[in-house]
């Protein structure tokens, strides 16, 4: 009940924090898509490079987020952004690379070789093959990678409140430091709801982007 009154009384600031949260994850994953999809496509050309890249990307994911934030403080301090929004975005971008690169790589490599051969034999250039055949067919799997990245990093972004990035994590960290269960619970619920909502929205988007010929 108290939580309810807290939410009702602080509705505006909760929404503001949620928007901050969405912005951090959105910007970071957005850049991760811009970087990760081309990387995922490029590494299909060479299996050993692909293995190396995927290995590095999975090592990054194993670094605990707190440690990653800590690592970035001295580096980004040199440009005056040791804490705050920028390190949060960079950390989430790095975490997002693995699912996006991996799914892109898998999806493109799994395109039926017969389709690739038909496309080549019909006289498509490698660019045409990519944009007209391989990427459209890979879209559902790439989008699944994006979803994974978003859901996983909504949690990471909550921790970024500790380095002053803002977002819903602020409620949680304040709840802990002020021993205020209302804020703590509100923050936890809000983060979970955001994750569920994001997953659902992205699933809809994934269906929308999937070529109709590929749906079942």
């Amino acid at each position, binding site marked *: 009940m108290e939580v309810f009154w807290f939410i009702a009384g602080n509705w505006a600031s909760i929404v503001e924090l949620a928007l901050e949260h969405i912005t951090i994850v959105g910007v970071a994953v957005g850049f991760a898509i811009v970087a990760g999809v081309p990387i995922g496509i490029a590494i299909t050309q060479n299996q050993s490079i692909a293995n190396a890249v995927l290995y590095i990307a999975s090592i990054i994911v194993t670094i605990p987020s707190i440690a990653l934030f800590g690592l970035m403080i001295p580096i980004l301090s040199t440009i005056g952004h040791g804490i705050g929004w920028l390190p949060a975005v960079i950390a989430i971008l790095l975490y997002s690379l693995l699912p996006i690169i991996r799914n892109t790589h898998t999806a493109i490599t799994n395109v039926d070789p017969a389709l690739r*051969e038909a496309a080549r034999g019909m006289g498509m250039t490698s660019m045409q093959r990519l944009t007209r055949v391989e990427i459209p067919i890979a879209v559902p799997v790439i989008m699944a990678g994006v979803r994974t990245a978003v859901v996983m990093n909504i949690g990471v972004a909550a921790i970024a409140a500790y380095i002053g990035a803002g977002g819903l994590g602020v409620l949680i960290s304040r709840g802990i430091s002020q021993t205020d269960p209302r804020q703590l619970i509100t923050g936890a619920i809000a983060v979970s709801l955001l994750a569920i909502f994001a997953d659902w929205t992205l699933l809809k988007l994934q269906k929308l982007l999937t070529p109709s010929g590929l749906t079942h």
Partner: protein
Amino acid sequence: MIQLENLTKTFETPRGVVVAADKVNMTVPTGEICVLLGPSGCGKTTALKMINRLIRPTSGRILINGEDTADRNTIELRRQIGYVIQQIGLFPNMTVEENICVVPRMLGWEAKPAKARAAELIDLVGLDPHHFLYRYPKELSGGQQQRIGVIRALAADPPVMLMDEPFGAIDPINREIIQNEFLKMQATLKKTIMFVSHDIDEAVKMGDKIAIFRGGRIEQYDTPDRILSHPVNAFVADFVGADRTLKRLRLVTAEMIADPGTPAVARGARPQEALQAAKAHGGRTVIVIDANHRPVAYATVEELSGAHGTVGDFAHPLPATVPARADLRAVVSEMFANDVMWLACTDDQGRFAGVVTQPAVTAMLGQSSGQPLTN
């Protein structure tokens, strides 16, 4: 015209060097279908893919209409060669129409004529454009997909077509139907076609010429009839099968060996007239035709000699007739089914067109040259 000159391809594999094509020489004249035939792994696909440079030859040349394909831009070359792969390979993310329009659009056609072309081609293979143009490949049956695969290759009207077991992934009945459709189209389109098959029956049916491969070499390159009647060695004879003589039945139609001179008379004719006609022809049977010239019955010389009344009084109904266009396999089958030594043939309008006899069939098969008898 497609010319292969000393075409050779070797693959370096961990288990050693594989020679997939070994100094292959052959010429496919413009407008003909050449079938590459042979057991699995003999190099048919490799030979085919070297033509559109999906595989680079190790040595040797390929000329299309006299021009060395190595000197041409590979992308442009491929756009001018229709290519049908065995796995069909329709793009699942595109509609049937989009699939067919791929090459025309890459060649710079406007959307409108490309779409019109797609509709025209769909119609040509007996599918309803309204129904099929906007469907996706997964919504088509195997046979329909195969047809679309073929017309996609035909879309930009390429003079040369490469077809790798194009009717492989389909049941025998539908395969026969599509083969016939394709031959009908080819009769007007006159493409120069390289066609891979591992099925001797298909090769005999589709090919103007057949090249039999073994281990990357051509064992024999000849007309279907020559391959069946004169296999050059035991391998070819074995490959085409012990029933190769019977297979030749497919190469000849009833009209090619029918005797059109067999007398035909109306029911109302007098026996005397019929006898005279039979005598002039030298046979022992007359065919009785109806008012529309359709063969309906027959009578023998023995029954008619000294008889009175009309021919109709002595006639027996014909047990069966065959279309003059039918191949001899169908004719012989009909003869055996009805236990008769001869059958009357009919033309497209059902009119009497002559008589095929078992001796004529045997004589045709016995001919060493394979040139059918022409009476």
